[in-house]
């Protein structure tokens, strides 16, 4: 604590707490296709910037403008980034050698990796785990404990996580950003580990979610052959939805199909298959 007070002298703990709450509530509040989270980021930082630079200074106007630019990340895991940014602005206000470009570049360099990891860890892994536990509690008898369990666990952990990361970012300041850029090897290792974990879990969640089965039965005299049960399930349970998912990934990643085009493709495919009595 003592060490912290020495390095951060212009802002009080109350300022940071206020900014953290403002971020938790407003981070995604202005999302749009042009700047994504840009305006909200400026909204969160404004009281801090005013205190650091003074309401009528040129520096304050310039600071507002640099935080109005395009900004986009996964807002929950990305709570670290505004914390770091505030610490950098504070250092700049104290006359340390931190240029406008450094602040903007740090934000821009961090937002990509945090979007990737945040989407796969929080939205792709953590949330589906909680949702599938909750669904198993209630999908058969409609027990309200299912959704209540999800709300309590999700909200308490994720709000705490954002609060923690925001303050952590501020405490470490430019050090956190430096850690990120100078220890490229270590960061790559952590990113690889998290990505690997995310991919395995997402594979499992996908297996419980994506479904496709063939109802067509081949009848020849007394013999009835169910393609699904006697062929596809014997090869591997869930082989059809797996092939479907891989095909969709291939079309999007390699053939650059848009999501809308894929949606239409699946709808038409399903219509034809149902019409022919295959699925």
């Amino acid at each position, binding site marked *: 604590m003592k060490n912290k007070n020495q390095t951060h002298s212009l802002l009080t703990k109350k300022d940071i707490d206020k900014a953290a709450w403002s971020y938790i509530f407003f981070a995604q509040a202005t999302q749009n296709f042009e700047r994504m989270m840009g305006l909200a980021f400026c909204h969160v930082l404004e009281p801090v910037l005013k205190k650091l630079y003074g309401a009528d200074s040129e520096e304050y106007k310039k600071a507002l403008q640099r935080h109005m630019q395009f900004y986009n990340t996964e807002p929950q895991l990305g709570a670290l980034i505004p914390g770091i940014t505030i610490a950098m602005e504070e250092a700049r206000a104290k006359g340390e050698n931190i240029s406008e470009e450094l602040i903007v570049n740090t934000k821009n360099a961090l937002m990509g990796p945090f*979007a*990737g990891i945040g989407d796969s860890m929080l939205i792709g892994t953590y949330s589906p785990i909680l949702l599938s536990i909750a669904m198993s509690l209630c999908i058969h008898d*409609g027990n309200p404990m299912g959704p209540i369990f999800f709300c309590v666990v999700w*909200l308490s952990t994720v709000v705490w996580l954002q609060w923690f990361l925001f303050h952590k970012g501020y405490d470490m300041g430019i050090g956190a950003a430096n850690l990120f850029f100078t220890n490229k090897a270590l960061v790559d290792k952590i990113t690889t580990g998290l990505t690997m974990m995310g*991919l395995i*879990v*997402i594979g499992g969640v996908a297996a419980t979610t994506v479904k496709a089965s063939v109802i067509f039965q081949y009848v020849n005299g007394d013999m009835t052959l169910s393609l699904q049960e006697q062929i596809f399930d014997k090869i591997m349970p869930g082989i059809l939805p797996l092939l479907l998912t891989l095909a969709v990934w291939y079309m999007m990643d390699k053939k650059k199909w848009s999501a809308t085009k894929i949606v239409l493709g699946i709808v038409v495919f399903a219509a034809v298959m149902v019409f022919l009595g295959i699925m």
Partner: protein
Amino acid sequence: MTFFQALLIGLFAYLGSKRTPWFFGVAGGWNMIGRPLVAGLIVGVILGDIPNGVIAGAMVQALFIGQITPGGAMPADVNWAAYIGIPLALAAGGTGEQAVALSVPLSMLGLGLFNFIMTINAYFPHMADKSAEQGDGAGIHRATYLAAVPSFILRAGSAVLICYLGTPVAEMLIHGMPSGVLHFFEVAGKMLPAIGFAMLLKQSLAKQWMLVLFLLGWVMIGSTSMSVTALAVFATAVAIVFVMAQGEAKVPTPAAVQNTEEDDCYEE
């Protein structure tokens, strides 16, 4: 459905949409109230049928459990599925299957509304640009608050109108819908989540070989009785083993490098 019930559903539809600050921002809104599972409970309470609401919510949630929206690109609009699909199915006397059948087309139509709001909301940063140039902090906050208005009008408004006026239509659809069409929505609805996973793969496959990890996870759940939580523990172990096996030589602090290089030969 009474108008007052539709009004309440519309209010929660707004609270569960993207861009709502009211309840712990994106964590409590879009990622919680907006989830079909939670919507099922809320709609169940409003319409006075909690068990059926929760079941319908869980079944619609299954369609969207892995829905990720990288960079704001959305494969389907969960909001309309949750706050129009579920209430209409319940009000029309349907169950989970009917909620799924209504949710699939609604989630595609809702995508238009989502993209429309994302586009018109680009007006507000321009409004705030002028305030930023003049050093008018209050103007920036005003633009941020005003950005909630189109969301509120369009999200709440569309849900109230469609829920209130759509109940007879939904009754007609659900009771008059040929079983083939109902079956088609079920088949399409269960295949559509593939898109969300494909988008996530596209984003997170740093190296092509990592695709085997996705296959591994799929096979573990698909071919055994393992739960997702158990898989998460397994996945953590695999990731840690991989990172450890790469050796610690890359750890940047000089002392650590020396130690591990010596240790590597003898202890491991």
